[in-house]
């Protein structure tokens, strides 16, 4: 039966909640810490920062990643920056303002207390990163520089050229590697988690596969932290890395962790368009380009002229027209949906007519080519490498692409899932961004969860575990989980059908992008659910995986990930279908204002959907966490 769930938010004023939590949290003495073991899956910003911080405190950490080095986790690809409330620009910023921006950006579908804590902890992160040697942009005076980003009116974004994610991740990775040298972290690269192991209802370990050998291993601990990132790759074409996947969180879901708002996916407005059926991913161009680039399409349908031949009065700068106060800096969901409207209306550009122009001609005329080169040189170079086009001479072609999962495992204020001892941090949880994430808040959330929140809340949990002996990996729960994982892999190999996992993934991605992407409708979603069920049946009967289980086998890795996507995809559609309103990235065609904006329904839908696995992927159970707005009254979001 459906339940109403509680997030364990501390009482008190908004700005006192985290302070009072920390003051009352239980501690573990240094002598006891060395007896306790923690598993952290994922080595992106959230995973690496949590693993390093916990090891520094004295806990024994086992750190897992599927990449060949922890430094390659996909946080590395974030370009634009990281938000933090320092108010160095004296432009009216405050923790409260940052909290409101994030809450409003998320269309009032996030938890007040969590969102406030994100803003509250942001300043410390910049201090920590600078101390680690992250080379943030500097003024000539030597002080830190800021830039502005979509959805806000202050400059609070810190950046390291267009490689902020890389530099922050290297800081966290280096902190992690430092602890491997002390022996407090044992690193397992090229390992993929296959299952979560529960003993007496608590998370006590994982089953993992060594990807170089195919060997299946058991790892026990006193608790498990998932920091496995987002699952936007479910759409196949996305800005994510090829290996990004939902398997860790999905398998945890099947062991009892609730999935929250799984359909809320951020579709990024400025990625490069698909150029053909062979395409494997869409490269993101930093949103910072929208600071100076102007977005437009031809006013006429099917206009085949080259962009420079289209005169000013035959262009539609639709964002500036529709949203005069934010213009090209409208938030991502709005910018993406507007682009789709234009493309669907037959005004898309490029050979597949699937893009819009991002034009720098005006900025170059105003500031000179040198200034634009200084600001975005690396992005222009990257654009040329991929497309062969010089964007100083003709506009870039951009299109929306799946990017960030606002949804993820449901967690309480402690970032603990509904399974005791299972924590989810960073993008793998759902907690801070509501129905739409603001640019440069993703790096922030990953770091804040890993450096500043998890170390307190995990210690609070471990304080009750000091007398618990080491987990016995010969426990029947481990045996059963290993056997199941092994059987599943063997089934994939034994199926000997005619379609590869990648082919299934492409089909699934297309269904989701069309029916559960930028806009959703009741009939489209119902149709998608049907098609996904059929595709899943076909997957089970007709999958082709060459090679063996106990060997290095990329095709087998993909098969496991796509299998999980097939189940998650149906839940995403069911989630979108259950919410008869539009909010942030979730745009239901039936619920829009007269001028086509999202129509939110606070009376009936001010809750987080937390889905429970019932054993049948077609029959998930909906539980609700009511969103109580104690300190802020939700308003209609407007960027006009």
């Amino acid at each position, binding site marked *: 039966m459906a339940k109403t769930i509680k997030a364990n938010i501390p009482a008190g004023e908004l700005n006192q909640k985290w302070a009072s939590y920390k003051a009352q949290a239980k501690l573990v003495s240094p002598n006891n810490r060395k007896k306790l073991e923690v598993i952290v899956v994922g080595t992106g910003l959230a995973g690496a920062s949590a693993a390093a911080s916990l090891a520094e405190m004295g806990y024994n950490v086992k750190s897992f990643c599927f990449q060949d*080095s922890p430094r390659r986790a996909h946080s590395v690809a974030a370009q634009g920056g990281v938000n933090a409330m320092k108010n160095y620009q004296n432009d009216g910023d405050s923790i409260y303002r940052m909290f409101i921006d994030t809450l409003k950006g998320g269309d009032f579908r996030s938890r007040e207390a969590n969102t406030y804590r994100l803003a509250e902890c942001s300043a410390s992160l910049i201090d920590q990163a600078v101390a680690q*040697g992250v080379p943030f942009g500097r003024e000539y005076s*030597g*002080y830190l520089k800021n830039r502005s980003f979509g959805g806000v009116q202050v400059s609070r974004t810190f950046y390291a050229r267009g490689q902020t994610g890389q530099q922050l991740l290297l800081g966290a990775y280096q*902190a992690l590697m430092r602890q491997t040298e002390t022996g407090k972290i044992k*690193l397992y690269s090229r390992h993929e988690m296959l299952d979560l192991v529960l003993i007496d209802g608590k998370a006590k370990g994982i089953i993992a596969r060594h990807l170089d050998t195919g060997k299946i291993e058991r790892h026990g601990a006193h608790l498990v932290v998932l920091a496995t990132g987002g699952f936007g790759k479910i759409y196949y074409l996305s800005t994510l890395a090829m290996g990004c996947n939902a398997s860790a969180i999905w398998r945890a879901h099947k062991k009892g962790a609730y999935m929250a708002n799984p359909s809320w996916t951020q579709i990024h407005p400025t990625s490069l368009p698909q150029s053909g059926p*062979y395409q494997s991913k869409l490269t*993101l161009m930093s949103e910072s380009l929208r600071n100076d680039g102007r977005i437009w399409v031809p006013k006429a349908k099917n206009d085949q002229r080259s962009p420079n031949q289209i005169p000013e009065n035959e262009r539609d700068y639709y964002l500036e027209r529709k949203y005069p106060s934010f213009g090209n800096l409208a938030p991502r969901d709005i910018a993406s949906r507007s682009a789709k409207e234009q493309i669907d209306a037959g005004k898309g550009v490029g050979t597949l007519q699937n893009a819009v122009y991002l034009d720098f001609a005006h900025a170059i005329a105003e500031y000179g080519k040198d200034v634009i080169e200084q600001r975005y040189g690396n992005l222009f170079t990257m654009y040329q490498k991929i497309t062969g086009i010089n964007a100083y001479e003709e506009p870039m072609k951009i299109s929306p692409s799946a990017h960030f999962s606002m949804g993820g495992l449901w967690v309480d204020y402690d970032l603990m899932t509904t399974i005791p001892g299972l924590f989810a941090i960073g993008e793998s949880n759902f907690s801070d961004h509501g129905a739409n994430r603001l640019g440069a808040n993703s790096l922030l959330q990953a770091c804040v969860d890993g450096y500043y929140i998890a170390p307190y809340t995990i210690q609070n949990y471990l304080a009750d575990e000091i007398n618990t002996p080491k987990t016995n990996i010969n426990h029947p729960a481990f045996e059963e989980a290993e056997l199941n994982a092994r059987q599943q892999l063997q089934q994939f190999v034994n199926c000997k059908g005619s379609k590869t996992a990648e082919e299934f993934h492409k089909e699934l991605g297309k269904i989701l992008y069309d029916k559960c992407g930028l806009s959703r409708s009741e009939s489209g979603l119902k149709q998608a659910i049907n098609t996904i069920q059929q595709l899943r049946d076909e997957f089970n009967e007709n999958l082709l995986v*060459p090679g063996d289980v106990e060997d290095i086998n990329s095709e087998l890795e993909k098969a496991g990930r796509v299998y999980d996507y097939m189940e998650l995809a149906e839940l995403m559609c069911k989630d979108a279908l259950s919410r008869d309103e539009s909010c942030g990235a979730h745009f239901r065609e039936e619920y829009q204002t007269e001028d086509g904006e999202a129509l939110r329904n606070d009376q009936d839908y001010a809750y987080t959907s937390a889905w429970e696995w019932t054993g049948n992927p077609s029959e998930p159970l909906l539980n609700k966490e009511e969103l109580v707005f104690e300190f802020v009254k939700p308003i209609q979001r407007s960027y006009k």
Partner: protein
Amino acid sequence: MKIHLNVWRQKHKDSKGAIVKYSLNEVAPEMSFLEMLDMLNLKLAKKGERPIEFDHDCREGICGQCGLMINGIAHGPLKNTTTCQLHMRSFKDGDTIYIEPFKAKAFPVIRDLKVDRSAFDAIIAAGGYVSVNTGQAPEANSVMVTHDEAESAFDSAACIGCGACVATCKNASAALFTSAKISHLAKLPQGKKESEQRTVNMVNRMENLEFGHCTNTEACEVECPQEISVLNIARMNFEYNKAKL
């Protein structure tokens, strides 16, 4: 486009590898190099053969996981470009392309084109960090870093750890990789304090792994997708000598 491929296939670390020939008829110039390999792998899988194992992840030139020797050049013919950012428009219809793994004693082949670069992690673990625990940091603007210091540190910090420098070097030296991290941290006031200790530890670790010595051919800089300068190696030598004097 029609493309002929000569690809290194090797079953395991200790087995003997060999070049195997393949041909593809429907290569589009807009395809990335790795998408061309995806196409070949799909063909192989459909025929019931084992696809070619190769490393890749972000496919946007920043994670450093991809890396192939393409016609004998690390990451292929384009300057300052990772394998994943290389596109087939850089080749002609009818071309023959040789594809091999990054070969070095310190990078053993795992299978086909996949190699083990964990030796790089071991070098970083020896000292490639600032020893600051979470929570110890002072207010960020309390220590000034000039614009030029930050930019110069960034140039060194931009290394993606792909290993092209090692694969290209006739001695399989890791000098460019190691020196980039030493320089990045030595150039910043936050990292300067422990520079001597760091340099000695990292250089010693590099020597103990199976990398060769640097003989200043500067080939590494030419092949580096991130344009990491060999001046970093000079800086490493300077820091090392300073520590040893």
